[in-house]
């Protein structure tokens, strides 16, 4: 699918947040979840957003992934300012440029593994044959070529997360947002999933942005952004090696 209008030039970062703020209202009070955050994400980065619970990782991930709207600040995607986009334009942008991996996998229970991977492509209008072949290719890439017709409830946690990763890559996104992708997985499976994502990041030039407090994820990241009380405490490049 073509890029949405306002396509990025070589000089534009993939994602650029400036002074993002998000405050939630709780009863009569308000809780600032993200405060004046500025951040840039470039192609094929492997970035971990880390911090304690309540530090604003998931909120920031939701803002960057266009799942939520900030109260202040600006966000540009491919050089295009996102605040003025309609709900439909935001939906199209998520469909074409972003992929999502969730802590609880969030597969569509009535669809097989292949259909789950094919769903974003169906939204994008990819013809059924192309959809099917690409779904098979992606499932093979995540090691599930034998499980293409299986429904999510018959897959293990690790297998479900692999399907979710394949789905996230369906429309050749620029960025995959992953919110605690290893939280519901055992150690061995978590390691495998992280290796898989890093391999895909390198081979497909897709940026991965994780919200996590899992040290295994942090240790594999090439860049670690630490949050505290909704603010960026540090933003450092890392060797991104296995501990």
């Amino acid at each position, binding site marked *: 699918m073509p890029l949405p209008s306002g396509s990025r030039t070589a000089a534009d970062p993939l994602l650029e947040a400036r002074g993002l703020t998000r405050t939630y209202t709780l009863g009569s009070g308000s809780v600032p979840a993200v405060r004046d955050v500025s951040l840039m994400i470039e192609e094929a980065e492997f970035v971990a957003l880390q911090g304690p619970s309540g530090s604003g990782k998931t909120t920031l991930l*939701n803002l960057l*992934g266009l*799942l*939520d709207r900030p109260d202040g600040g600006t966000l540009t995607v491919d050089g295009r300012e996102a605040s003025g986009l309609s*709900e*439909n334009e935001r*939906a*199209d942008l*998520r*469909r*074409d440029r972003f992929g*999502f991996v*969730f802590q*609880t996998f*969030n597969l*569509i*229970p*009535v*669809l097989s593994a292949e*259909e789950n991977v*094919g*769903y*974003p492509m*169906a*939204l*994008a209008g990819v013809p059924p044959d192309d959809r099917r072949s690409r779904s098979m290719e992606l499932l093979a890439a995540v090691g599930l070529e034998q499980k293409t017709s299986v429904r999510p409830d018959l897959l293990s946690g690790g297998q479900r997360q692999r399907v979710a990763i394949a*789905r996230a890559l369906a*429309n050749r996104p620029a960025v995959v947002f992953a919110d605690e992708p290893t939280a519901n997985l055992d150690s061995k499976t978590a390691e495998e999933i992280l290796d898989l994502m890093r391999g895909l990041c390198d081979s497909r030039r897709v940026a991965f942005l994780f919200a996590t407090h899992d040290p295994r994820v942090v240790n594999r990241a090439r860049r670690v952004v630490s949050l505290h009380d909704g603010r960026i405490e540090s933003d450092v490049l890392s060797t991104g090696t296995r501990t």
Partner: protein
Amino acid sequence: MSALALAWRNLIRQRRRTALMGVVVAFGFAAFALAGGFIAQSFEGLREGTIRSVGQLQAVDRRAVSTSEETTLEFGIADAARARALVARDPEVSYVLPRIDFVGLATNGTKSIPYLGVAVDPEPEAAATGARGLVTVGSYLSGDGGDGVLLGTGLASALHVRPGDRVTLMATTPDGSLNAVDGVVRGLVDVRIKELNDRYLAAGAGLVSRLLQSSGTVSKLVIFLKAGADENAASRRIASALSGAGYSVVLRGWRQLAVFYEQVKLLYVGIFGFVGAVLVVIVILSAAIVMTMAVTERTREIGTLRALGTRPSGVLRMFLAEGVAIALLGCVAGALFALLVRALLNAWGFTLPPPPGGTHGDPIHVQLYPLAYAAGLVAMVATMAIASYFPARRAARLSIVEALAHV
């Protein structure tokens, strides 16, 4: 994976809920189909009965339309035989029945009872109206009727007469004098209305002409048309022919003559409409509850679909498609159920109680009335679409973040 395909998968996943909602829709549809069929049958029966009684058209003297007669045949059609022949020449006319309406007293020698009389030409009258079928005891009038009379069962009972007994009929002639003739009771008839049974008397035109001392004049010509005839066109042609022959008559259709037909029809439509509205409300409420539950249970799934790039309208379409699919499935089941119930009811031959003032109830017969099935389909699909719309709209407007965090 279209919204429709996804909706279908979800319906299969939620089999029990789909079945429950489908049953509600099926009953709603069957109620429409059966009630519609029953009412259509009732209208048809009422229409046929009305036409049997008053004909499709009646020719009466122009003065009789606006003024009541002070004496019998004051506003009659003179030279009725010629008028009858003229009307019978119309290609769409099947029967022309001359009738004389008169009133008087019938006596058995010791007791006199008022009657409402009608003079008929017996054979064509029986052929057109099925009057022979009303005879319960004795026989119908034969030939030109001779001196035979038919009495309502109530009148015969009050006079203590049976077929073969003699009765004397008294009436006022058109010039105001009192006259009497003797007749022989040929048969007793049940005209299905108690008050009329207590007063009804029919006789051949010959006997009545002698009684009224008036020959060749009738109160009206009752006209029956062939099947499929254009009533309005026939009315215009006949009126024109009679007018051209010098008759000052007015043609009136059965709907004008039987005002009660439209009233009864309106009453039935009102009842049907009310019951239909209650059904629709029940289905809307049930469906809205079920669809709201579905939206609530699938909140996180909705969040996921939206995160993946489904537009709000896509979510709306998916839930609407589920509602409409349930409606279609329910209508298919409802149609089968309605056909089964219809077959059972018609085979059972259950008879309804008589209507107020009636002497006989009619057997329940439910017609296969396609319009009622179509109305049921439209009502159920529209109802489910309306019931699904608001939960679906809520689903489409959910905040993605809140939906994803839903437990």
